[in-house]
């Protein structure tokens, strides 16, 4: 750790920028206070502009005042540390969950926007299409299927959700001034990926979102089927789980979520 005079000055200066209540260093006068005020303003406006730009729909959903409140909370609890201001939005869904605890759809919407931002700049990757998949698995035996692991599009994301994100997204793209209740009767899932250059998402079952997350973490197709079947499953339940897993696999292939087999 560096404790040179310059390092000390920079740490103290950063404290001044981040904290309005910080006392001025010894020997600083009114001119310095005026200058610090400008740097504080620049810091805040850069951060607020970045968050408002990344979470445009979330801002529209909650309104300007509440969005400023959650942005300020986020700036205080998770001040930026990365070289790119785009990273300032990391964990913003958690800030939304904290500030809008009564409205869990806000955190889910913020999560979706954050996932879509990440996908917008993800590496360009070709998707495995149905023909490619068929060719790659043509000679598969039972063991090969069981050991099959999938490589998904970089930064594709999934989440179990309690609100209709498709309806929220569409409502926010319309001229509607008031929002209905978007809560779902039962939990669902959301998959986010990129179609060409355009980030996109669909709602799926919660089970599918969980399975996607497991396989993204390296779970094999066989183990995913076992998890879907549940403990002590009989043959019928195992067959049913295999059918459901096959349907998921088919959807992921058709939507272009799978980049390769592993």
């Amino acid at each position, binding site marked *: 750790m560096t404790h040179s005079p310059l390092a000390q*000055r920079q740490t103290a200066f950063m404290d001044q920028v981040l904290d309005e209540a910080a006392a001025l260093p010894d020997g600083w006068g009114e001119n*310095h206070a005026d200058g610090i005020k400008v740097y504080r303003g620049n810091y805040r406006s850069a951060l607020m502009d970045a968050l408002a730009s990344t979470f445009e729909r979330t801002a529209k959903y909650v309104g300007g005042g509440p969005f400023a409140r959650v942005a300020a909370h986020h700036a205080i609890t998770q001040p930026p540390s990365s070289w790119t201001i785009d990273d300032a939005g990391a964990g913003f869904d958690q800030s939304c969950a904290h500030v809008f605890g009564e409205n869990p759809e806000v955190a889910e919407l913020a999560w979706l926007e954050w996932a879509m931002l990440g996908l917008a700049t993800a*590496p*360009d990757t070709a998707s495995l299409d149905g023909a490619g998949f068929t060719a790659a698995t043509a000679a598969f035996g039972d063991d090969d299927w069981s050991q099959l692991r999938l490589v998904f599009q970089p930064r594709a994301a999934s989440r179990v959700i309690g609100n209709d994100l498709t309806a929220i997204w569409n409502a926010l793209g319309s001229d509607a001034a008031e929002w209905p209740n978007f809560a779902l009767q039962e939990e669902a899932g959301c998959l986010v990926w990129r179609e060409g250059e355009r980030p996109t998402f669909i709602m799926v079952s919660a089970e599918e979102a969980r399975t996607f997350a497991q396989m993204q973490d390296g779970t094999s197709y066989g183990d995913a089927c076992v998890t879907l079947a549940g403990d002590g499953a009989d043959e019928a339940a195992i067959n049913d789980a295999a059918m459901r897993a096959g349907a998921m696999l088919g959807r992921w292939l058709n939507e272009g979520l799978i980049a390769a087999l592993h």
Partner: protein
Amino acid sequence: MTDPMNKIPPFDGFGLGLRRTHYDDFLNNDVPVDFVEIISENYMIEGGRQMRILEEVRAKHPVIIHGVSMSIGSAGGLDQDYLAKLKQLEQRIDPLWVSDHLCWTRTSAHNSHDLLPLPLTQEALGVVCDNIDNAQDALGRPMLFENPSSYLTFPEDELTEWEFLTEMTRRTGCYLLLDVNNIYVSSRNHGFSADDYLGGLPLDRVRQIHLAGHDPATAERSLIIDTHDREVCDEVWALYVKALAMLPSPVATMIERDDKIPPLLELLKELDRARGLASATREQVSA
């Protein structure tokens, strides 16, 4: 210090920043600029539409990579992940040159995403020069550094900003990006002479000039603020002409606009004014 054989030749041209609102203009038209400048951090990414557009624009125009987050004045040294990503971009784009600012933006814990002022001390000069050596070695090419706008000075200052920049270029072999608006803003904020500033710089190291608008002082606020949100004012144009007359070789001139960005045609008109002034100044100097 960078190999002195590794020089940046002068580039005589007029350009604009590549901003999202003008993507279609650049993709679909033959925009009359000699180069475009990009904000490095916006393109230190892995893929997607933004990168594809940059590569298409690069196929039409020379590109300058201009950063805001290198934090060349950080006492803790440079972020190696940042340098690696900047190097990737540099290799992908093959720019005219890579530039950043004489400032610092981060400590080990936080990043301000603003160009914070350095105490103008011998210690800071040593830190800046070590960091520039590190950056130039990593990139394998000399860089340009821009004089910042500032809103306070430090009691411990030992050098003027132009003395600092002069010694910085001498020790590291780096070049200068002269922001004429920043000279104007800081000279007004701190009460020094812009003429002294220009006269004190190693002008043979200048390869580019930035021109931009600022928010003037008000009854409530004595400080002028560098905002890049409006046209270049007459005082800054006058300082631009003065700088051009003093420079020993042609430089690249760019109009910066980062907020309240107008239609491209408006910026091109402003750029034409720079072209006209440069041409007239050159004629006067050679007469």
